[in-house]
């Protein structure tokens, strides 16, 4: 069951990664020209991603919190015994960043709901970029830890 949930957690994280990165690029480096893949990537309407990103962030966090006890008992103990303190610390940071991200979700929703001309554009850019960073960091750390024995030949 835990393996199924980890895979589902990872798959939903990939979808979230795509959605939040598209949105972050569309607001931080906007483009009106859709010629070429990079410009097309940035030329999307960021607003349409908001609700999906929030739902995915919550779903990925809930799934993560369900499988967290398995990590705490089996994986973290292994990491500590193997003296992989950097790996343990990376996960500790991941859980704190995700928690901070959860608290930002209502503001993120609000900032994307209102017109950017009303003075909230810098905050919209900042909140989206911070959430994008949290999602990327969480994804990379989770992915590396999930495969740590294979990646480092342990």
């Amino acid at each position, binding site marked *: 069951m835990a393996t199924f949930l980890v895979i589902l957690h990872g798959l939903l994280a990939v979808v979230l990664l795509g959605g939040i990165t598209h949105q972050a690029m569309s607001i931080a480096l906007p483009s009106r020209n859709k010629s070429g893949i990079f410009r097309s990537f940035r030329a999307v309407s960021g607003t349409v991603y908001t609700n999906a990103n929030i739902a995915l962030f919550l779903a990925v966090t809930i799934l993560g919190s369900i499988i967290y006890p398995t990590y705490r008992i089996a994986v973290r103990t292994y990491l500590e015994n193997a003296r992989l303190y950097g790996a343990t*610390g990376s996960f500790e940071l991941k859980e704190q960043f995700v928690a901070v991200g959860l608290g930002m979700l209502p503001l993120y929703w609000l900032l994307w709901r209102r017109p950017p001309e009303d003075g909230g554009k810098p905050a919209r850019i900042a909140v989206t970029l911070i959430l994008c960073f949290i999602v990327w960091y969480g994804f990379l750390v989770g992915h590396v830890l999930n495969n740590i024995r294979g990646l480092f030949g342990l």
Partner: protein
Amino acid sequence: MNMEKVFPIFAAAFAVIYILAVEFNWALFTYHPKIGEWGWLAQPARTGPPMYWYGWLATSLLGASSLSLIACPLVGRRPAQYWLGWLVPLVVMLTFCYLFRDFFLR
């Protein structure tokens, strides 16, 4: 309730209360994963390691919601302070990096 003014305060309060909850272990409840038991507030380890993360989240949610409701009438006609909602969480994230530096410096 004016969401424009309250949500930035909520984001900032959540981040600050969360880091305080982690640092001083103000967990509203504790989970003991090895025996599958829950307990109120921060409890010491029973069999296996205790988990406080859920409790820290609950503390932060409760604290930030209360603070936002209290702040609601106080902000009055002042314009929405959106910067609070991203700058404070960003500083909290950087503070976490500093607090957890020992993991990476061993």
